[in-house]
């Protein structure tokens, strides 16, 4: 203890103070497209009460939010909207991908449904389940709070450093073969490295996973 300080003054770093404030006042932007949205509403309602974690202020304007909760499946017609909402949110911001559909496309492996929003926007926390229980979403919020407290910085340096996509490669080798008119082989027969991906070199995309830090921060 510093000598001469009164009892109601304490010392901390700016980063820690910012993390403490940010993690306890997450303002969610509900992007609810399916049944996960109902669970999201239940999480915010009185029984489970997300207000206990400071995340009860659902704002329907992305300009006022810092936590995007993608709850439900996202179809290809909706994805530009989702990306625009994500870009409109002010920094610092985080994203929770809630439910099997938002994480992986779930059972909807069709021509219209995006196979995981993490292919196109950066996701911080994945919540499995179909739909997840409110407790799972609360656990995700608590995990996100821990993540912010452990790695956040006042000016968001950790975000600026992340120049490679977090998610998997958006291009499905099978679909690329369909575009090129090549025969579709079984999973083991197709090597993704044998196909030149537009905008992605065969190895460049996944270097983020090979450098020891892992694709998902945390």
């Amino acid at each position: 203890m510093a000598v001469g300080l009164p009892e109601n003054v304490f010392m901390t770093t700016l980063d820690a103070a910012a993390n403490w404030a940010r993690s306890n006042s997450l303002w969610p932007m509900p992007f609810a497209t399916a049944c996960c949205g109902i669970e999201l509403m239940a999480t915010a309602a009185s029984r489970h009460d997300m207000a206990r974690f400071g995340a009860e202020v659902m704002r329907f304007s992305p300009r006022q939010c810092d936590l995007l909760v993608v709850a439900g499946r996202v179809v290809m017609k909706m994805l530009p909207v989702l990306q625009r909402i994500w870009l409109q949110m002010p920094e610092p911001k985080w994203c929770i991908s809630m439910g099997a559909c938002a994480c992986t496309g779930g059972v909807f492996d069709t021509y219209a449904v995006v196979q995981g929003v993490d292919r196109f926007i950066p996701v911080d926390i994945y919540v499995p389940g179909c739909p997840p229980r409110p407790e799972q979403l609360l656990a995700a919020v608590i995990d996100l709070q821990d993540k912010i407290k452990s790695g956040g910085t006042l000016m968001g340096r950790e975000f600026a450093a992340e120049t490679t996509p977090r998610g998997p490669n958006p291009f499905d080798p099978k679909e690329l073969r369909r575009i090129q008119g090549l025969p579709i082989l079984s999973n083991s027969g197709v090597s993704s490295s044998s196909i030149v991906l537009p905008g992605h070199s065969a190895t460049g995309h996944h270097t983020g996973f090979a450098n020891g830090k892992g694709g998902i921060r945390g």
Partner: protein
Amino acid sequence: MVDLAELQNRYGSELTASTFRDNHRLVVPCEKIYEVLSGLKQDFGFDQLIDITAVDYLEYPDAEHRFGVVYLLLSVSTGERLIVKTFVDLPKPELPTIYSLWKGANWMEREVYDMFGIVFSGHPDLRRILLPDEFASFPLRKDYPLQGRGERHNFPVITRAES
């Protein structure tokens, strides 16, 4: 019940009818579809169009045509229903629009166009209705793969640094 003999008398003998479990069906050659539907509306009391949909008969062993277009009609006064079916083929699946008979056909025909690529000539606004405008193929055709041709993966990837 519509009298088949009377219809054949008016529109030619290519019309065939069948009944299955109280569903009355009428098969019409595609060049007469507008004429028949217009007659059914004006003279036989089928004043409501319930739906327009289509079927792709690719890989059906005994199919003679590629697409069947199905019109479901209802007579509001008698409660009678009628299924009118016609067939079109590639490379130019085209039918006359029935927008002038029922305004509700507008979006139904757009949906059939969106999913099957069947063109309704004379339609006032034949655009895609469900899929994005830049979508290049017709996904309910049976030769379209279940998982798509890369449409759902063709978006920019936003990294955390640039957002």
